[in-house]
Structures are given as structure tokens and as C-alpha cells.
């Protein structure tokens, strides 16, 4: 099994499409960091403008952690889009290229084939998120140094430097599971069609619609909000609250895991019965 997973990973990581995500992050993150450095703009100063008379700030608030936290907001829409490029192609790509006929005429069960493809999709998703984390934290610190993390979210929250690292670890753990959910949804859509465009558009449409529904102050939407996976996919933001509600984070991560498992099991059920006509 491990051998097939490694070969499947080799298959994915020798495709140029796989590197679109890494390339995009590899361009955007340095652009933001270098751009902020060269422009001399300090967003923390702008945000603190109204409080200058009440507070005296010392130390470096415009630091690597602040930059990394800023970049993490791409986890709402931008990173999911990059994930769907590969996750949406995972099964649909086999149909497009006609290679289902190679995969599914062998003495391995469809359950195994699907599981292997799901594992590699999750692996790709994880590497992309880890790459985002490493690049944003690394470059942020390289250019802006270390310090306390200041967060503006209706109020000002200052998190001391010695606890920021584990908050980021927790946040990225949550982000990882949230992105797995997006990948699982794209994987699910990918099993229906013979072209990756459908799963990419489908996943993004669901994501955006659910995010909008989750924010609208309409009673009906409020009742369905607990059932939308997007309600829990912003779990990473909870790692930067004071105090940290670990129960809430655990609950959100658990729900997201259930969504992942649910999408996978439904995909499995449908895929086992699917006639391969491509």
C-alpha cells in the first residue's frame, strides 16, 4: 500500500499542475513581504493611529508574526482555490486522460485505489499549507524580525511573543484540517465528472455560497449555519483569541474531520458503483 501511495505521490508531483499552488504562494508571499518592506508602510501604525494618545507602544509590533497572521487570511478563499486545482483533478484527471482504464482493471479494489488517491490528495494539501506557513513565518521574520503579535479584530489584542509560536502551531493545525475539508469536497466532486474544471468551480461555488450564507443575518440561514462546514473552517482564527477556547477549537476540528470522512465515504460509495466509460 505504501509503495503505491509513494508512486501515486510521484505521479502527482511530476505534474506541472501540482506546482501552480506552490508557485503562486512562492510568488505572492515574497511579494507581500518585500513590498511592505520596500514601501515602508506600517499597517500597525495606521491601525494604532486613533489610540496614540491613550497608549504608548514599545518594541517591534510590525514583525514576522504580524505578517504571517496577515497572510493567513488567504486561507478563506485563495488557498482553497489552489487546493482544488489538484484535488479536483485527482479523479477527474484520470477520467480525462483515460487512465481509469489502467487503474481499475488491476487486482486492487476500488476502495484501495480511492483511498490511495485520497491520501495523496490530503498529503498534497498538507504540503501546500505547510509551505505557506514556513514561507510566511520564515520570510516575515527574516525581513521584519520577532516580537509580540498585535491583532485588530474590533478590539486590539496583544499576544506576547513567548506564546505566539504555539498559537500559530494550533492555528495551522486547524487550517490544515479546514483545507483537508475543502480538498475532500473537491475530491468528492471530482469522482462525478471527466474534467477537473467542474470540481474546481463546484468547490469554489459551494465555499463562497456557504461563507456568504454563514454571514447573512437571516433566521433560516442561522438555523442551517451549524451544518455548513465553512462555519468551522475558520477554526484557525480561534487560536488568536484570548483566552483560547480549546474546547471550541477541538469541537470545530472534530466537525471538520467528520466532514472529511463523510465526503470520503460518500465518494467511496458512489465510486464503487460507478461505470467507467471514459
Amino acid at each position, binding site marked *: 500500500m505504501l*509503495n*503505491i501511495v509513494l*508512486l*501515486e505521490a*510521484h*505521479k502527482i508531483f*511530476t*505534474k*506541472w499542475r501540482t506546482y501552480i499552488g506552490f508557485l503562486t504562494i512562492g510568488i505572492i508571499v515574497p511579494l507581500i513581504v518585500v513590498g511592505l518592506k520596500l514601501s515602508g508602510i506600517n499597517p500597525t501604525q495606521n491601525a494604532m493611529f486613533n489610540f496614540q494618545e491613550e497608549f504608548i507602544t514599545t518594541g517591534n509590533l510590525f514583525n514576522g508574526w504580524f505578517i504571517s497572521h496577515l497572510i493567513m487570511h488567504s486561507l478563506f478563499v485563495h488557498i482553497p482555490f489552489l487546493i482544488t486545482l489538484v484535488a479536483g483533478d485527482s479523479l477527474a484527471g484520470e477520467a480525462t*486522460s*483515460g*487512465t*481509469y*482504464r*489502467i*487503474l*481499475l*482493471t*488491476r*487486482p*486492487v*479494489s476500488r476502495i484501495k485505489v480511492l483511498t490511495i488517491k485520497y491520501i495523496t490528495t490530503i498529503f498534497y494539501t498538507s504540503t501546500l499549507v505547510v509551505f505557506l506557513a514556513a514561507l510566511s513565518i520564515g520570510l516575515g521574520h527574516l525581513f521584519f524580525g520577532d516580537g509580540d503579535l498585535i491583532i485588530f479584530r474590533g478590539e486590539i489584542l496583544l499576544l506576547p511573543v513567548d506564546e505566539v509560536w504555539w498559537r500559530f502551531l494550533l492555528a495551522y493545525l486547524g487550517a490544515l484540517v479546514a483545507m483537508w475539508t475543502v480538498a475532500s469536497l473537491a475530491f468528492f466532486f471530482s469522482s462525478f465528472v471527466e474534467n477537473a474544471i467542474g470540481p474546481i468551480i463546484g468547490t469554489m461555488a459551494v465555499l463562497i455560497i456557504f461563507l456568504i450564507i454563514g454571514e447573512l443575518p437571516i433566521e433560516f440561514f442561522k438555523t442551517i449555519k451549524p451544518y455548513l462546514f465553512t462555519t468551522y473552517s475558520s477554526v484557525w482564527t480561534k487560536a488568536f483569541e484570548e483566552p483560547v477556547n480549546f474546547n471550541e477549537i477541538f469541537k470545530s476540528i472534530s466537525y471538520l474531520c467528520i466532514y472529511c470522512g463523510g465526503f470520503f465515504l460518500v465518494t467511496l460509495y458512489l465510486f464503487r*458503483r460507478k*461505470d*467507467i*466509460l471514459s
Partner: protein
Amino acid sequence: MSEIILQTHNLAKRYKKRFAVSDLNIEVYRGDVFGFLGPNGAGKSTTIRMMLSLIHPTNGSITIFSKRLDKHRGEALKRIGGLVEKPDFYGHLSAFDNLKFIGSLYGGVNKKRIEEVLETVKLSDRINDKVKTYSHGMKQRLGIAQALLANPELIILDEPTSGLDPQGMREVRELIKNLSKEQNITIFLSSHLLTEVEQVANRMAIINNGKLVVQGYVQELLNSSDQYVQIQVEPIEAAEQIIKSFAFIKKYERHNNSLLIYTSIDRIPEINAEFVKHNLQVSSIIPRRSLEDYFIEMTERAYPAFQNAKTKGVGNA
């Protein structure tokens, strides 16, 4: 009688209201090169996809190596190599990497075996080239290589010469003959190229509109069909009069500018001599006894309108 290694039992596949395959019962014996013939859309690929578990039958079942495919899928597929329709591979990978990946789905094959099968299909010199750089003929050969990879007892090939040039077709036919003779592999070969099956198969089935038309040994089926000679001759009316004088000709047909004379081939010199004696212009004499005619005959039964359009006049001598 040899062991039956592949058998379908009232096999059927329905897409919405249309049956692509219906009540199909065929038997393939160990050592056969089994030709599975049918015009385009007859249901050949659907049948093969069911045999390789790509699609699920609506009714009926398939038995491979005496076990039901739906219940012993993995066990059966371990002993089968298959090539379904056009050979598609991971274009961004080399032939070696493609076969390594496919081999992993059998539990792994060693480098030597990969090199062996590529040598068999004469692709050794392109082993590390990306498959997207291959021509169609090379992909077709790679398709056969992947079917051979796990030392199968049965190979199912769906139109393996499709899209090849005459040289490529001949090479694939030779390869199929060699696999059967030298490696004793049973081969199930679908084709709409009837001459191809005639050249390589010992047994065959003809399928049309999803239904079995006939199956049996190629030679027996050929012998049971009428033999005739197609002669292009002018003036054709005079030729008809001469034919009527031959007692051994029981039946003839007028087909465009030719006469289709139902007789054995050894009577041709006699007929030709008589035409020449009466100063008739004989342009061509073609003995027709091929599987292709037999196939057309079988399929035309399903399309009588087509047959009528082709045959202008029918007479009895």
C-alpha cells in the same frame, strides 16, 4: 475439450432504455485466440469493460477461471492483462515509470520484467522517454506491454491494431500469434477488422446490436458459409447465359457489374475458359471465402435493407 477460462452467462448491460449488450453467452477455452467481432457500436467494448470490471452488468454474470468475477474480482484480475480501447498512459511519466506504477497495482514487478515486456514490444530504446512523446503505434505497443506485465494467463485486447499503419498492424498480429504459441497465453481479441481475426484467431464470436450472432471455430464457421467467386465480366448478360449452362452452378447473383457465382474455387478455370471462348472480357476474378464476407453476411441479416441495396439482382441457374 479444453478448460473454459472465460464465460459469460446471459450477460446484459442496459443504458437507460437501450441494451448495449443483451443475453450474451460466450465461452473462451484455454489456449484460444478468440476473435470477438462486431461492427462499431455492436457492444464489444461494453462487453470487454464488463470482463475487466470497469462497468457493472445489469443482468447475468461473468466467470473467469471458474470463479464469478463479481465475487472474486481481485483474484481474477491478477491473472488477466487487458487493453481497453485506445491505450492511454500518464504522458508526463516515462514508459518505465508507467509500467512501474502499473506493476505496483499487482503488488510490484521488478525492473527486469519491465525491461522484458518492453523488449517484447520493441520499445527498449525508448524506455526512459516520456510517453507523451510516443506515436500512436508506440502507445499501442506499450498498451500490449502493460497487459503482459504480470505474466497473465489471459489477455483481453480491445481493437489492438486500431489506428495503426499496415506495418504496425502486421507487427501486432505477429506479436499476438507469438504470445499464443510461445507463451501459451489465451487471447481474447475484439476487432471490427475481420481479416485480422481471420489471420490470428482459432475461435470467434460475432456480436451485433449487443446480441450474439454466432460463435464457434473459425474454420468450421467459414466452411459452413457459402463460397463464391466474384467475376467482373462484360457483357454481363452473355455471361449470365453461359453460367446457366453449367450444371454445377446452383446459384448466382448479379452485383453491380459483377457476377457472384456460388461454386467452389477449383471450378474457376473452367468458367473462365468458357467466358474467353465466347470472347467475353473478364476484368477480374476474386474468390470470396473470407471471414469478412461471413461477417458481412451475418451482420447484414440484421440489416436487410442494407443487403437489398447492395444486391441488385438474384437469379437461380
